[in-house]
C-alpha cells in the first residue's frame, strides 16, 4: 500500500506532472462523504453435484449486492458501514445483513506511521481476500479458492462484533502492518447444520470471544505482498428442551501464509493454510474430536490488455491430514471418502467492458467433493467424485 508520505517523497524533477492543492481554507467534512456499491448476477452449471443452487440444471440462484457509505467528520475520526445482500442457492438463506459498521479512531497519523482502533462490526483479515470476499471485482475469479475461502461456512469467519487494533509503518524497504480483531463472530444455521447434522436443533449455537490477527508486508505499492494470519474463532452450544446434545464448545484455529507478486501484466498468488478444528462436550451423539485440515492454492493471472485478464489456479483441500483421502472416514461413516478432499483446476477470463461493468467466465475441473455443502447435496450416495463446473458473472459497480 502506498502512503501519502510516498507521494510527498516522490521525485518531482524531470516530470511533466505537477501537484496542486487547493486554496488554504478550512475543509468541510461534508466533502469527505462517499458512497459506493456493486451488484452481480451469476450463472452456475455443473456436470454432477450441486453448488450455488440446482446447478446441474443451470442455476441463477447466486446474486450479490452491496452498498456502503463513509464519512470523516474529523481528520482522526471516520465512520463506515456496508449493507450486503446475498442469495446463494441452498448454501445459506437469502439475507440482507450489515457486512461491517465501524467507528475508526486514528490515534497516530504521520507521513510514515498510522495506528488506531476500529470499533463495531469489523471484517476479519483472514488471508488476502476475506475482508472483501463478497465484492466481485476484488476477487481474482467468480469463486474464491474454496480450500481456504469455503463458502459453506463463510459467515462464521467473516467478521466479529468488537474491535480491531491496527497499525501501519512505512519503512525504507516497504510497508509493515498489523491488524488484530477481538470480538464475537456471527454464527448462523449453516455452521449448526454442518456440525450437528441438521439446522433445526432445539438448542442454539452462538459466537464466543474470538481473536483474528494478521501481520503483513507490502513492497512497491503491492508489487509484493506477504501476510501471516492466525485466528482462534470460538462458538458455544446452548441446549434447548429435550436436546440430544449437551453444552458443547467449538474452536476453529487457522494459520494462513500468503504471498503475492503483482506486476504490470503478471500476478502470482499462493496461500497455504493449516486449520485446526476442535469439538468438545457435545455429549455421546457427537464425541469429542480434533482434526487438522490443510489447504493451498497457486494462482497465476495475466493481464492481456488493460481490460482483459486470464487466470489459472490449482487449489487443494484436505479436511483431515491424518486421513487425507477419507478412507477411514468412509469406513466409520459409510459416506464417500472423496467428500473429505478436493483438487480443483480452474481457468478463467475476465473483461472490464467499462470501468463499471465486468463479465467473467470460468471453468473448474474438480476431483473430490470436499467443499460441497450437505444442504445442497443431501444424499451422499448421489455425490460424484469427478465433476465439472462452469460459471458466468456479470457485475456492476459504482
Amino acid at each position, binding site marked *: *500500500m*502506498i*502512503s*501519502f*508520505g*510516498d*507521494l*510527498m*517523497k516522490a*521525485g*518531482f524533477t524531470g*516530470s*511533466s*506532472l*505537477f*501537484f*496542486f*492543492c*487547493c*486554496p488554504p*481554507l*478550512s*475543509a*468541510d467534512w461534508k466533502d*469527505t462523504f*462517499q458512497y*459506493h456499491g*456493486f451488484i452481480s448476477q451469476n450463472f452456475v452449471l455443473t456436470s454432477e453435484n450441486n453448488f450455488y443452487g440446482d446447478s446441474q440444471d443451470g442455476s441463477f440462484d447466486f446474486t450479490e449486492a*452491496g452498498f*456502503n457509505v*463513509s464519512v*470523516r467528520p474529523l*481528520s482522526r475520526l*471516520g465512520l463506515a458501514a*456496508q449493507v450486503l445482500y446475498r442469495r446463494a442457492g441452498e448454501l445459506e438463506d437469502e439475507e440482507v445483513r450489515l457486512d*461491517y*459498521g*465501524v467507528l*475508526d479512531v*486514528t490515534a497516530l*497519523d*504521520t*507521513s510514515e506511521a498510522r495506528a488506531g482502533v*476500529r470499533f463495531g462490526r469489523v*471484517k476479519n483479515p483472514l488471508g488476502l481476500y476475506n*475482508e*472483501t470476499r463478497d*465484492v466481485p*471485482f*476484488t476477487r481474482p475469479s467468480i469463486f474464491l479458492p474454496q480450500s481456504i475461502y469455503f463458502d459453506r461456512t463463510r459467515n462464521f469467519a467473516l467478521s466479529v462484533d468488537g474491535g480491531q487494533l*491496527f497499525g*501501519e509503518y512505512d519503512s525504507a524497504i516497504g510497508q509493515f502492518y498489523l491488524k488484530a480483531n477481538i470480538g464475537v463472530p456471527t454464527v448462523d444455521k449453516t455452521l449448526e447444520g454442518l456440525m450437528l447434522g441438521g439446522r433445526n436443533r432445539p438448542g442454539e449455537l452462538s459466537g464466543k470471544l474470538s481473536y483474528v490477527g494478521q501481520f503483513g508486508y507490502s513492497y*512497491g*505499492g*503491492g*508489487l509484493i505482498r506477504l501476510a501471516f494470519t492466525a485466528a482462534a474463532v470460538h462458538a458455544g452450544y446452548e441446549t434447548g428442551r429435550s436436546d440430544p446434545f449437551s453444552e458443547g464448545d467449538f474452536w476453529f484455529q487457522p494459520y494462513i501464509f500468503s504471498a503475492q507478486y*503483482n506486476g*504490470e501484466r503478471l500476478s502470482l498468488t499462493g496461500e497455504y493454510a493449516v486449520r485446526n478444528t476442535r469439538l468438545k462436550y457435545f455429549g455421546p451423539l457427537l464425541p469429542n474430536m480434533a482434526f487438522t485440515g490443510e489447504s493451498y492454492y497457486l494462482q497465476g493471472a495475466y493481464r492481456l490488455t*488493460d481490460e482483459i485478464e486470464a487466470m489459472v489456479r490449482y487449489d487443494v483441500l484436505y479436511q483431515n491430514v491424518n486421513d487425507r483421502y477419507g478412507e477411514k472416514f468412509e469406513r466409520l461413516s459409510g459416506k464417500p471418502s472423496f467428500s473429505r478432499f478436493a483438487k480443483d483446476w480452474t481457468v478463467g477470463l475476465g473483461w472490464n467492458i467499462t*470501468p463499471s461493468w465486468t463479465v467473467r467466465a470460468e471453468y473448474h475441473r474438480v476431483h473430490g467433493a470436499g467443499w460441497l455443502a450437505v444442504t445442497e447435496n443431501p444424499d451422499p450416495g448421489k455425490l460424484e467424485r469427478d465433476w465439472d463446473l462452469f460459471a458466468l458473472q456479470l457485475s456492476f459497480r459504482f
Partner: protein
Amino acid sequence: MSQHSWQDGTPVVVFVLPDSSPIHKEFCKKHLGMFAHQLRQTWDRKVFSGTGQAPELASTVEEMRALISKTPGAIGYLPESAINRTVRPITIHEGAR
C-alpha cells in the same frame, strides 16, 4: 494515500483521473512507483472493507483543475500545460515530511 490530514489538521481530499488516462498511469508509475491497477486494488480493498476511502474521480484535466481549486484540503496532479492561477503548486522534495 493512507494519511488522512495535512499538518494543520485539514482533511486530505485526493483527486485522480480515470484509470485509462495516460496522465493517471504516469502519475502512478513515476510518483507512486506502482501500476494503476495496483492503486485501484489497494483502494478497492480499503473502501469495501470499511478501512479507508477512495480518491475522488475527476473525468478530465479541466475538471481536475476546477475541483482542486474549489475543494478545501484537495490535492491532485496536472500536466504543465493545464496550469493557471486557480490552483497552488506544491513542491515535493525527496525526504519531505
